[in-house]
C-alpha cells in the first residue's frame, strides 16, 4: 500500500434512527486506482458513498483526504474537497441544458455574473475530452437518451476537477454496448490519475475495470483485496457469506411448456414495427437488445401504455384490443416496470396497500379470495419487512421489487412482462428473483423477460428474441451465446 492514499476512511459508524447501517468501516483509495465497493443491498454501500458525498454525516470515525482530516455537512464541501459523485438516480434537471447541468452549482462567473460563453466552451471541451462529439451543450437534458444523460453525469463529475469520483451503479441503465463507452471513460480517468470508487452489482465490470475491491456486508467491511487475488465466485461468497453454486437456477421440475398465452402478430406503432411474438405457458422468453432498440417499447405496447396501432394481440387464443393498462390487466397481463419507484410503487403507502393496488384498482380481477392470499404471496417472495403496515419507502430496493412483483401476482395473471427486474438489486436478491421467475414459469405463467444484462437472458430464457431498431432482428434458442445475441442486437447476422 502506498503511504499516502487519496482517501482514508477510518472507523466510520452510521446509524439511522437507532438502526446501525455502518459499523466501523475502513476504506483506503490510492491515487489513480479504480476501487470497487461491493456488497448486498443494505450492506451500506450507498450510505458510505453518501457520507463521502456530504449528503450524510458519519456518527463516528474520521475521513482523511490526502492525509488531511475533513468532515462534510453539505455536498458542496465534498465537491470543493475534490470528491465528485455520480448517483444511481439521474441527477439532471430536464429543463436545464447540458451545459447548465454540467456546471450547476459551480457556474463560471465573470465579474460576479454567470459567464454563459465560458460555460458553453468548457462544456464542449469537456465532452471532447471524453470523446463525445455529438452532444450539443445547449440541448436540454430532458431531450437526451438515457446513456447520454449518464455521460453528462460523468462529465459533470469530471468537470469538478475531482481527484476522486464515486460512481453508484453507473451502468445500471446502460446496455452492454454503452457500457463500453463507460469503460473508456473510466480508463481515461485512471490515466489522468483520478481515483474512482466504483459501486456495482455487475461482477464482470468489477473484474474488467477495478484494481481493488472492498466488500461490505451488513454494514461492516469484510475484506479489501486486489482484484487478481480473487475469483468471481469467491467474491460473491464474500458478499453473501455463502457460495452460490450456479448463478442461474435450473428450471424447476414439472415446468411444462403449454399453450400459447400471448401472441403478437405484426405489431407496430410509432416506436416499433413488425413485432411477432409468442409466449407459451411455462415459458420464459427473453427480449434482448441494446438501449433504444425498443425493448421497453414492446412491453409498453403489449400492456397498452402506447398500444400497437398495427397488428393483432391475442391472449390465451382470444384476440384482444389492449388500449390501456386496465384492458391489459383484464386480459390477464402483468407488467413489472423498469423504474419501480416512479412507476411501480406508492412509496408513502404500506407494503400491504401496495400489494393490493392492482386488485383494488381493477374490479375485474378483485376478489376476496385473492385479497386473502396476498399475505401468502408476500411471504412466498421472502419479503423482509417489519410487516404489512410498513411504508415501502423504508424497504431496500430488492424488497421493494418484491412488493411490485407481489402486487401483480395477487391478480393471478397469465402473462407477466418483467422489464429490467433486477436493475439496482444486489446479487443475493437477484438470485432470489431468478428463482422466483423460474417458479412463475413452473406455475404455468408465460414470462416475457426484458433485460439489458445479456447474461440474464441467456441464463434464464427458453427462447431469446432480439430487437434491433424497433424490429425483431432474430430469435435464438436457449443456450445461445452472448456473441450470437450481440450480433443480432447490432444488426448483423450471427455467423
Amino acid at each position, binding site marked *: 500500500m502506498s503511504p499516502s492514499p487519496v482517501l482514508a476512511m477510518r472507523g466510520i459508524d452510521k446509524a439511522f434512527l437507532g438502526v446501525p447501517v455502518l459499523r466501523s468501516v475502513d476504506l483506503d483509495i490510492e491515487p489513480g486506482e479504480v476501487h470497487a465497493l461491493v456488497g448486498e443491498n443494505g450492506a451500506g454501500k450507498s450510505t458510505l458513498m453518501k457520507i463521502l*458525498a456530504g*449528503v450524510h454525516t458519519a456518527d463516528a470515525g474520521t475521513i482523511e483526504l490526502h492525509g488531511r482530516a475533513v468532515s462534510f455537512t*453539505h*455536498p*458542496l464541501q465534498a*465537491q470543493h474537497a475534490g470528491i465528485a*459523485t455520480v*448517483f444511481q*438516480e*439521474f*441527477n*439532471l*434537471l*430536464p*429543463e*436545464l*441544458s447540458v451545459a*447548465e447541468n454540467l456546471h*450547476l*452549482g*459551480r*457556474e463560471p*462567473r465573470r465579474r*460576479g*455574473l*454567470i459567464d454563459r460563453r465560458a460555460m458553453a466552451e468548457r462544456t464542449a471541451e469537456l465532452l471532447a475530452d471524453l470523446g463525445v462529439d455529438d452532444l450539443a451543450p*445547449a*440541448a*436540454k437534458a*430532458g*431531450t437526451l437518451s*438515457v446513456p447520454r*444523460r449518464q455521460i453528462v453525469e460523468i462529465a*459533470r463529475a469530471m468537470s469538478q476537477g475531482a481527484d476522486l469520483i464515486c460512481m453508484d451503479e453507473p451502468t445500471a441503465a446502460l446496455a452492454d454496448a454503452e457500457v463500453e463507452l463507460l469503460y473508456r471513460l473510466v480508463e481515461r480517468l485512471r490515466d489522468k490519475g483520478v481515483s474512482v470508487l466504483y459501486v456495482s452489482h455487475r461482477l464482470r465490470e468489477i473484474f474488467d475495470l477495478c484494481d481493488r475491491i472492498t466488500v461490505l456486508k451488513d454494514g461492516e467491511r469484510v475484506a479489501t483485496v486486489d482484484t487478481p487475488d480473487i475469483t468471481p465466485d469467491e467474491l460473491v461468497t464474500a458478499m453473501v457469506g455463502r457460495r452460490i453454486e450456479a448463478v442461474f437456477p435450473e428450471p424447476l421440475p414439472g415446468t411444462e411448456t403449454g399453450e400459447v398465452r400471448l401472441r403478437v402478430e405484426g405489431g407496430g406503432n410509432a416506436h416499433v414495427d413488425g413485432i411477432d411474438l409468442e409466449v407459451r405457458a411455462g415459458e420464459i422468453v427473453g427480449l434482448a437488445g441494446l438501449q433504444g432498440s425498443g425493448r*421497453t417499447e414492446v412491453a409498453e405496447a403489449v400492456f397498452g401504455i*402506447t398500444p400497437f396501432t398495427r397488428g393483432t394481440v391475442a391472449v390465451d387464443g382470444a384476440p384482444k384490443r389492449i388500449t390501456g393498462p386496465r384492458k391489459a390487466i383484464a386480459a390477464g397481463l402483468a407488467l413489472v416496470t423498469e*423504474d419501480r*419507484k*416512479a*412507476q411501480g410503487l406508492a*412509496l408513502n403507502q404500506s407494503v400491504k396497500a401496495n400489494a393490493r393496488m392492482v386488485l383494488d384498482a381493477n374490479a375485474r380481477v378483485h376478489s376476496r379470495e385473492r385479497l386473502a392470499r396476498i399475505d401468502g404471496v408476500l411471504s412466498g417472495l421472502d419479503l423482509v419487512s417489519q410487516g404489512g403496515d410498513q411504508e415501502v*419507502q*423504508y424497504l431496500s430496493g430488492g424488497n421493494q421489487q418484491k412488493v411490485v412483483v407481489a402486487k401483480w401476482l395477487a391478480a393471478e395473471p397469465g402473462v407477466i412482462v418483467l422489464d429490467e427486474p433486477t436493475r439496482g438489486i444486489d446479487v443475493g436478491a437477484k438470485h432470489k428473483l431468478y428463482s422466483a421467475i423460474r417458479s412463475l414459469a413452473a406455475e404455468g405463467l408465460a414470462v416475457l423477460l426484458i433485460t439489458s444484462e445479456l447474461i440474464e437472458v441467456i441464463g434464464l430464457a427458453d427462447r431469446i428474441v432480439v430487437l434491433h431498431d424497433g424490429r425483431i432482428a432474430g430469435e435464438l434458442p436457449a443456450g445461445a451465446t452472448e456473441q450470437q445475441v450481440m450480433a443480432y442486437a447490432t444488426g448483423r447476422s450471427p455467423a
Partner: protein
Amino acid sequence: MSPRRLDTTALIYLALAGVVAVGGAAVAMDGGNLFSTANLVDMFTRTSLTGFLAIGMTLVILCRSLDLSVGYTAALSSLVAATTMDGDPGRIVLGVAAALLVSGLIGAAGGAVVAFLGVNPFIATLGVGLIIKGYLDTRYKGPAGDVPALFQQFGYTRVAFLPISTIVMLALAAAGIWFLRSTRTGHHMYAVGGDIDIARMSGVRTKRVLMAAHVLCGMAAGTAGLLLAARFGTGSAESYTNLYELDAIAAVVLGGTLLLGGRGGIAGTVAGVLILAVLDTVFNVMQINPFAKDVLRGAIIIAAVAIYARRQLGRTARRPRFDAATTGAGTGRP
C-alpha cells in the same frame, strides 16, 4: 434561452396578441377604440400593481414555492411608507427604504418557515398573511400616513401613454429577467424548482436560494405597496381585502410559469399581466357587468392554462419516460 423556452414565451405573447386583437375588435364593434390614448393609459396603469406582485411571485413559483401573503405585505408596506414619509418630501427615501426593509423581512420570515421549518408554502405564507392581517387590524384602524406630492408622482405621472409606475415595473421585470439569467442565485431558482434534491446534491445552496426568492418576492410586494401609497396619498390596511395574491398567481400562471416550479420566467409573467390588464380595460370600456367580469376572468384563466397544458402534453409525449425517471428520483428519497 433555449429554443423550447423561446417557444413557450412566444406562445404567450401570441396569446396576448390574440387577446388584444379580439378585445380590440369587440370594442370596435361596440363603437369604441381600444387603442385610444386614454384606453392605452388605462391598460398600462392596470399592469403596474399586479406586475410588481407577479414579478416577485414568479420567483417563488419558479422555486416551487408560493406566497399568499403578498397582499398583506403590500398593505403593510403602504402604511410603513406613508407613515414614515409623513408628508415630508425629505423623508421619501427613508420611507421607501423602510417599506422595502419591512417587506423584505416579511418575505424572509415566510421563506424561513418554508425553507427551514419545512412547512408547505401554501400554509406557511397563508399563516404569515394572517399574522400581518392581525397586526394591521390591531395597529391601524384605517388609512394612515401622508405621502408627499413628490412621491405621488410615482403613481400619477406618465410619459406619453406609459405611466412611470409601469416603466418602473417593466424595468424591474427586465432586472428580474437579467437576475434569473445572469446571477447564480437567479439561475439556481430553476434548479431548486426543478428538483430541490438534485439541486442540493449539485451543491446549490437551496435554502439560501429559496430565502432569496421569498425576500425578493416580499420586496416586490413592498414595491407594490409603495405604488399603493403613491396612488392613495396615504397608507391603507384595507388593500389586503382585494386578494391581490390570487391576481398575481393568475398572471404568473397565465404567463406560462409552471405552478410546480422549474420552468417559466418573468418575460411570460409580464405578458400574463398584460393579458389581465387588457381584459380589464376591455371589460371596462364595454361596460361589462362587474359580476360578468368575474365569470369571464375565471373562464379565460382556465381556458388559457388548458391551452398551455395541451402543449405541455405534446411535449411530454415526446419523452414520456424521462419525466417518470426524474419524478422518481425526486420523490423516491426519504
